[in-house]
């Protein structure tokens, strides 16, 4: 094969459908250039006191500016319309009660007051239900959105059929079909999926599938297919009131350290699992004392303080939303 005919060597040569397919799939990870490169600071000699003094002044200015910017960013008068911008040049506004729907060849971008933005993919339909400082709410009927929010927990939420996704300061993607089935994938921070009294936390690097009547268990990105199936099987069995010791043992056996969130959620939703081997596995993963019978018993009885004690072992709980500051750089 000559270099000219080689589809690997000469990009754009349509000689291999497989390479073309891989290229199409992976193009989503392509580098997105910023507007301009940063240049190096000239290497100018400075006196000993000048740099610390300048740094202190700069820090003070930054602190004052940040405080002002932060307050301005969070403030939003009730029912003020959101700005809508297409990826081209057109602009519009979305008021409370308005619905926006993109056609098959359209995309759109919504500014969520001043706390973030939502990108709408083609064939997406959503409504603005409420907007004011501290409470911005949309309803997603169908389609796909990517939301990037940097604000205190619960300032932004998405209403679905019989459920709600509450932003806890993060970036996430959401697919929903007209029947209310879908998936939420969290890129940074946390979300909370709520259905009635049931609350399910989903952190960065995890996703959750849901149907109109049931919320799945959050899974780590890249979790093995076999593990995913066993988790779903166990959750459905326990939700239906039956016990599946085979699935329980299989989940415990296949779980990796990075699946700790999945196991914690399973045990939180079905406290009786604390009586089995899952408790010891999670204790080991969290470096928590496994022999604390009082704690184990309290968990099996569904006591919140026992459950919270282990959730607090997680490295970045939702309350530390400000650490996802990159989501503010829109």
């Amino acid at each position, binding site marked *: 094969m000559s270099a000219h005919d080689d589809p690997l060597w000469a990009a754009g040569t349509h000689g291999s459908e497989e390479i073309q397919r891989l290229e199409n799939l992976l193009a989503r990870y392509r580098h997105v250039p910023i507007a301009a490169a940063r240049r190096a600071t000239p290497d100018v000699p400075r006196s000993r006191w000048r740099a610390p003094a300048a740094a202190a002044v700069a820090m003070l200015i930054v602190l004052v500016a940040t405080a002002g910017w932060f307050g301005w960013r969070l403030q939003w008068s009730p029912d003020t319309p959101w700005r809508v911008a297409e990826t081209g040049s057109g602009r519009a506004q979305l008021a409370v009660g308005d*619905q926006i729907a993109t056609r098959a060849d359209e995309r759109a971008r919504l500014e969520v007051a001043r706390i973030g933005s939502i990108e709408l993919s083609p064939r997406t339909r959503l409504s603005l239900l409420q907007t004011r400082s501290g409470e911005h709410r949309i309803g997603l009927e169908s389609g796909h959105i990517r939301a990037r929010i940097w604000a205190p927990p619960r300032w932004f939420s998405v209403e679905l059929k019989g459920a709600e996704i509450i932003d806890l300061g993060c970036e996430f993607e959401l697919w929903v079909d007209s029947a209310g089935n879908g998936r939420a994938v969290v890129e940074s921070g946390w979300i909370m999926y709520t259905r009635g009294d049931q609350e399910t936390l989903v952190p960065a690097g995890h996703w959750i599938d849901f149907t109109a009547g049931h919320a799945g268990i959050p899974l780590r990105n890249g979790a093995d297919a076999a593990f995913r199936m066993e988790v779903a099987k166990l959750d459905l069995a326990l939700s239906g009131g039956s016990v599946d010791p085979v699935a329980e043992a299989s989940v415990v056996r296949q779980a990796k350290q990075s699946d700790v969130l999945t196991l914690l959620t399973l045990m939180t939703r079905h406290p009786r699992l604390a009586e089995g081997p899952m408790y010891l596995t999670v204790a080991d993963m969290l470096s928590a004392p496994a022999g604390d019978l009082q704690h184990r018993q309290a968990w099996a009885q569904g006591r919140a303080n026992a459950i919270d004690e282990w959730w607090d072992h997680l490295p970045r709980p939702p309350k530390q939303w400000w650490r996802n500051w*990159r989501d503010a750089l829109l």
Partner: protein
Amino acid sequence: MKSQAAGAALTSVRLLTFDAVAPSASHAVHACPMKSPVSPFEVARHVRAALEGSQDAYSWLYRRFAPLVHTIHLGVTTHPTAEDLTQETFDVAFARLSQLREVHQFGPWIAAIARRQRPRMSPLQVPMEEHHDAATAEAGPDDAAEAARVLNAVRTLPETYRETLLLRLVEGMSGPEIAALTGLTPGSVRVNLHRGMAMLRAALGLGGADDEVFDVRA
């Protein structure tokens, strides 16, 4: 839980649509036009100009070499982190530009800087397992998952094959472009591409690995 009555209380529903929308750049699969390979003379000229303070030269170096730096990071961390690390790498490189002796070797030099940088990850984030990054409605969750699976498979390859293959499959570069950016010989790039592709096929459970090796030998 907030009241869902608000949803039913919508009194007037206006439908907003747009006349024409250009696809998002980050989702455009074939948005990367073929460039001519960068020549060592061009690189040297722009490095010298940058050292003399030319902002345009800095921008040129960034535009040309950012994909190379980005793929090095993408091979070991998630897409958003790779973007951040790309900026950090250029910050470091531009601050040390005066230390670059062979000015036409900017590509290999900044690649070495990038390889020394390691991402800082939270234990809950799994650096080698990317998922659903930048999905679209056309490419739904399953396509996004498939893309993540392929990317994760590329990440398991040895560094040499991984970086060359990512430049080809993610950045859409041709063999000559990759050779010019990395400082590798065209022969090495071609070997890396084919061996990397063979390993990727094996990792993904696809056939054709032997064909790739045969192609390289031919």
